């Protein structure tokens, strides 16, 4: 029992990062209809940039800020010069293009920053929280707590933006009906650009959150890409917040699963579960229905 509680508690921080990653994938997919398989590597570019700034300035907040800004600009560039001209391509074509981006960013990072894995500081390095129980203590690292708080605050901010600001409602409107959005004068191109930028910026933040564990290296977010996609599958691609919920479920499931199956097999088993979910209920566990691009 305690193992399960420990599993749940340590699963939440992981789940938050999966959920945010899923959020950024779902945000771009829902708004623009493109599933971005390069999202992890876009985030990685931002993290590398931030890491570089960290080297120059030694200031963690500045590093994170510059990384996020870099990610935002990357989003603008990708949307404006790659995605906008081809926005009526087939799913297959789009898929291959984002896979191409993934490859390009992998090697670009290697060429610019080398193949080494660099360490990155934790956002909050304090003493871990320890709860003593009769059998065995439950341990939560301080960074995990900080990470969870950052993640949840970010989710709330995103929820507020999407729910109540004009631009947020407009982006939901654009996702639901393009023609409707255009007749009321919404500049759909700009909304798409914002979705790309915001999505990549979130991926950069996720990158910073996991950088202490994964180190800064070209494929640091490859696994998170897969987990993010899985979070989307669980939560349904229709809603970004479904993805966050899916991410939390996934994180907890992953850690709790280790109680019952050998640690090494947990990923394989989760992925098989994901295929089952995808096949049985493609719209996700939480979503009511899903909209696909015609």
């Amino acid at each position, binding site marked *: 029992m305690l193992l399960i509680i420990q599993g749940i508690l340590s699963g939440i921080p992981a789940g938050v990062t999966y959920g945010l990653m899923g959020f950024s994938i779902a945000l771009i997919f829902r708004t623009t209809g493109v599933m971005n398989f390069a999202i992890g590597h876009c985030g990685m570019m931002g993290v590398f940039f931030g890491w570089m700034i960290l080297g120059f300035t030694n200031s963690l907040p500045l590093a994170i800020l510059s990384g996020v800004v870099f990610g935002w600009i990357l989003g603008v560039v990708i949307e404006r010069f790659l995605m906008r001209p081809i926005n009526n391509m087939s799913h297959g074509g789009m898929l291959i293009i984002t896979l191409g981006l993934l490859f390009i960013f992998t090697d670009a990072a290697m060429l610019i920053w080398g193949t080494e894995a660099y360490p990155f500081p934790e956002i909050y390095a304090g003493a871990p929280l320890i709860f003593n129980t009769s059998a065995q203590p439950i341990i939560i690292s301080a960074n995990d707590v900080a990470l969870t708080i950052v993640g949840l605050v970010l989710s709330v901010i995103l929820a507020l933006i999407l729910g109540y600001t004009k631009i947020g409602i407009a982006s939901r*409107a654009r996702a639901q*009906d393009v023609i409707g959005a255009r007749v009321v004068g919404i500049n759909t191109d700009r909304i798409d650009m914002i979705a790309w930028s915001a999505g990549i910026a979130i991926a950069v933040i996720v990158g910073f959150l996991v950088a202490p564990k994964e180190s800064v290296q070209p494929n640091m977010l490859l696994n998170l890409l897969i987990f993010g996609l899985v979070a989307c599958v669980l939560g349904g691609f229709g809603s970004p917040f479904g993805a966050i919920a899916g991410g939390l479920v996934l994180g907890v499931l992953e850690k709790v699963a280790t109680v019952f199956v050998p640690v090494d097999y947990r990923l394989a088993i989760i992925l098989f579960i994901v295929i089952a979910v995808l096949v049985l209920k493609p719209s996700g566990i939480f979503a009511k229905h899903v909209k696909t691009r015609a």
Partner: protein
Amino acid sequence: MLEVQNLVVKYGAVQAVKGNSFAVREGEIVSILGANGAGKSSTLFGVAGMIDTRGKLFSKDVVEGKIVFQGQDISDYSNSKRVKMGLILCPEGRRNFPELTIKENLKMGAYCRGDFNKKIDFVYSLFPRLKERQIQLANSLSGGEQQMLAIGRSLMSDPVMLMLDEPSLGLSPVLIDEVFAVLVKLKEKGIPILLVEQNAIRSLKISDRAYILETGKIVHEDKAQTILNDEKLKKAYLGL
């Protein structure tokens, strides 16, 4: 108010509108009539700047021609720029945002133009049903209410000129009466309307002038009253 010269709309190989010129003057209701697939909706799309062909690598859609609105050449303007000038389209098939609330839908109507707080009362006074249901999602509305919402949303942007595409489509006779009553009210307020309607006789009755479209080309133009008594209309519709 609006003057269109040689409008051409092509979707790939299909030429939907083939070089039409027409105009809408101050305070007028002008109807565009024609069989289904004659190019009426494409005409409105072309005028509203809905077909965005700029910077698209693989798009084969083409819009050509000169569109002058309030003395300004808006042919190169984007859709949002046209909306900002007050040239508003209420599209065919409602095109509401199904998973936004009715209030949010109306808020989106005032996205580019129009004061939300001022206009919302006007729209609610026209369509009291919308006020009752303002926090419900749009997809919970019936067909007629959705049409009200679509018209209401266009009115939110304080139109200088309004283009309506099939506002009575799929509505019951009572609701059709209601819609046409609203159109007359708008006319009284001095808003010119470019109207595309299936219900030819109804729309001619409230119109000042009308154009008849046949396979993408304007074949006839006259006073609404004249057309109402004309055999040409019957030909365009029933092929007699």
